[in-house]
């Protein structure tokens, strides 16, 4: 195996034009599977949510989940797609142990939704339109655990164990048209597209679309062509890129890798590749060719779908305000820039901020907590913001305690700590940890007097007019009260005691 030299990113873009295709799988949040009535409860005991249909036992027959179809249509409509008047399911035949039927029930040349688009907004506010080729219905596979290999990898494993609880859970696969013209911004466009799609899916309420739980998974197809050439180059397909950051990195890496191969006079191999979170690289998986022969044919056990136009129009009329329009409205209401809104979106914070504002916080405070302290905590724990064990109402309560002067920011962070540690509601944490701000004049006055007595040299400077030096005394007060003093009030008292007016 030869190792390809990566070409520096700018150099790659100077010579080549990237073309992307993104395939996103969304796991629907239906109560039951796509073709049987088995429950889809996450975290259930292995193989406790199966039946003859999803185990592929002889004689079983599938029946389509109505909400699965409805969700597919709603996703299609939100992506401005045409909805098929008539379409069928198809069998995609291949052997893999996580698929007990030895075929996946999918859709082939008759997807339920096709020919749409999604507008995505980049960091600087520019809107890029991504064409949607199709959205179709299919089912998930079981979950494999590989035994005997290093770090649970399939390579070197002696055998594997399969849990079929996930087999048959509805998936919607959304495929873009070739994304051309993004140039150097291709990685950013890819990331913004997946982020926007995630918001769209959530706004429809069809899935929580949490990437870290595999509820939204992205495959990145990429090829390069020399500037000015019409025909596309050979593409690579990087599988299961499962965070927004990874989508961006995978595109960037593949651009540099393809450029390396092509500049060297080589040919890009059409293959699937695996993305490695730890270093942002991809490595070769299986070469396509043989695997491509899926021998699709119409599923004989399911009858065609012909969604009534009245139903489709009713679903269209009931669509919620779509995320980009909603964000533009919120941006106005919150008085922030497109860039700031983009940061909130990238952090997965928009809905959390909205819910926090609805719970009584002001928008600036809600944004500050979610994008600052809480974003940092989520990052530390390796979860998305929504995965933190704190609710918007609790954040709103913390903000309210700060606003009324009961907490300063430092204490508020400790309250958040407590909530994240499962110590209860913010007020309980304040109570249990004794975190109220010290602003009663007696206790604070005593701390101020002590600080002045212990720092006479500084006190003299302040008396002499160096008001800025008072900061050191405020610091001493804060230290003595373990951060629980009202800093502004302490400063007032210090200046008052030293006979200077505040400045």
């Amino acid at each position: 195996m030869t190792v390809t030299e990566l070409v520096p990113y700018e150099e790659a873009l100077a010579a080549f034009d990237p073309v992307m295709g993104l395939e996103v799988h969304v796991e629907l949040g239906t109560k039951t599977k796509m073709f049987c009535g088995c429950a889809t409860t996450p975290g259930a005991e292995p193989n406790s949510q199966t039946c003859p249909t999803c185990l592929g036992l002889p004689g079983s027959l599938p029946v389509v989940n109505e909400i699965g179809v409805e969700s597919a249509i709603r996703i299609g409509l939100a992506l401005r797609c045409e909805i098929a008047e008539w379409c069928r399911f198809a069998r995609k035949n291949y052997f893999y142990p996580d698929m007990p039927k030895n075929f996946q029930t999918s859709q082939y040349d008759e997807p339920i939704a096709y020919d749409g688009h999604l507008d995505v907004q980049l960091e600087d506010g520019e809107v890029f339109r991504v064409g949607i080729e199709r959205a179709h219905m299919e089912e998930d596979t079981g979950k494999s655990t590989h035994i005997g290999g290093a770090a649970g990898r399939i390579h070197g494993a002696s055998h594997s164990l399969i849990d079929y609880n996930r087999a048959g859970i509805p998936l919607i696969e959304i495929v873009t048209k070739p994304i051309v013209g993004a140039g150097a911004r291709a990685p950013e466009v890819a990331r913004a597209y997946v982020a926007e799609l995630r918001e769209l899916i959530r706004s429809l309420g069809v899935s929580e679309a949490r990437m870290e739980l595999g509820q939204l998974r992205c495959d990145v197809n990429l090829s390069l062509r020399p500037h000015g050439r019409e025909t596309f180059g050979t593409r690579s397909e990087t599988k299961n890129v499962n965070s927004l950051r990874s989508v961006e990195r995978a595109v960037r890496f593949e651009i540099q890798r393809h450029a390396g191969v092509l500049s060297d006079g080589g040919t890009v191999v059409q293959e699937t590749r695996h993305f490695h979170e730890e270093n942002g690289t991809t490595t070769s998986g299986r070469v396509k060719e043989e695997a491509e022969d899926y021998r699709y044919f119409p599923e004989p056990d399911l009858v065609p779908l012909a969604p009534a136009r009245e139903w489709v129009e009713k679903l269209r009329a009931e669509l919620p305000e779509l995320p980009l329009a909603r964000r533009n409205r919120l941006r106005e209401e919150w008085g922030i820039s497109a860039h700031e809104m983009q940061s909130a979106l990238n952090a997965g914070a928009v809905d959390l901020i909205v819910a926090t504002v609805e719970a009584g916080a002001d928008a600036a405070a809600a944004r500050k907590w979610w994008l600052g302290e809480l974003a940092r905590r989520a990052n530390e724990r390796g979860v998305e913001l929504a995965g933190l064990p704190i609710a918007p109402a609790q954040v709103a309560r913390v903000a309210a305690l700060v606003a009324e002067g009961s907490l300063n920011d430092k204490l508020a962070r400790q309250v958040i700590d407590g909530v994240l540690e499962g110590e209860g509601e913010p007020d309980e944490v304040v109570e249990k940890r004794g975190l109220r701000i010290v602003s009663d004049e007696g206790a604070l006055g005593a701390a101020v007097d002590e600080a002045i007595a212990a720092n006479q040299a500084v006190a003299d400077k302040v008396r002499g007019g160096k008001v800025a030096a008072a900061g050191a005394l405020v610091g001493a007060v804060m230290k003595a009260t373990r951060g629980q003093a009202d800093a502004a009030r302490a400063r007032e008292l210090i200046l008052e005691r030293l006979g200077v007016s505040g400045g």
Partner: protein
Amino acid sequence: MPGITREEVAHLARLARLELTDEELDHFAGQLDDIIGAVARVSEVAAEDVPPTSHPLPLTNVMRADEVRPGLTAQQALSGAPAQEQQRFKVPQILGEE
């Protein structure tokens, strides 16, 4: 026009994970070719006005409500498994030595 070659049968056998001997390939290729030829005669009868169909009944939109139905217990699900471990189906090595 219809029909199936020996190479196609060999290809399909590989995709279906069937190990066929040369004699079997010869044998099945002939049989399958006969079957496909027989089925193809349907096209001779079906005129332009008969659309291809994938289902014998003229039904559409058969759907069920999204309501949980009792399925199998894990023990029942695993009862037919040749091997199991940790309440999961145990399967042989997926990737061979390469």
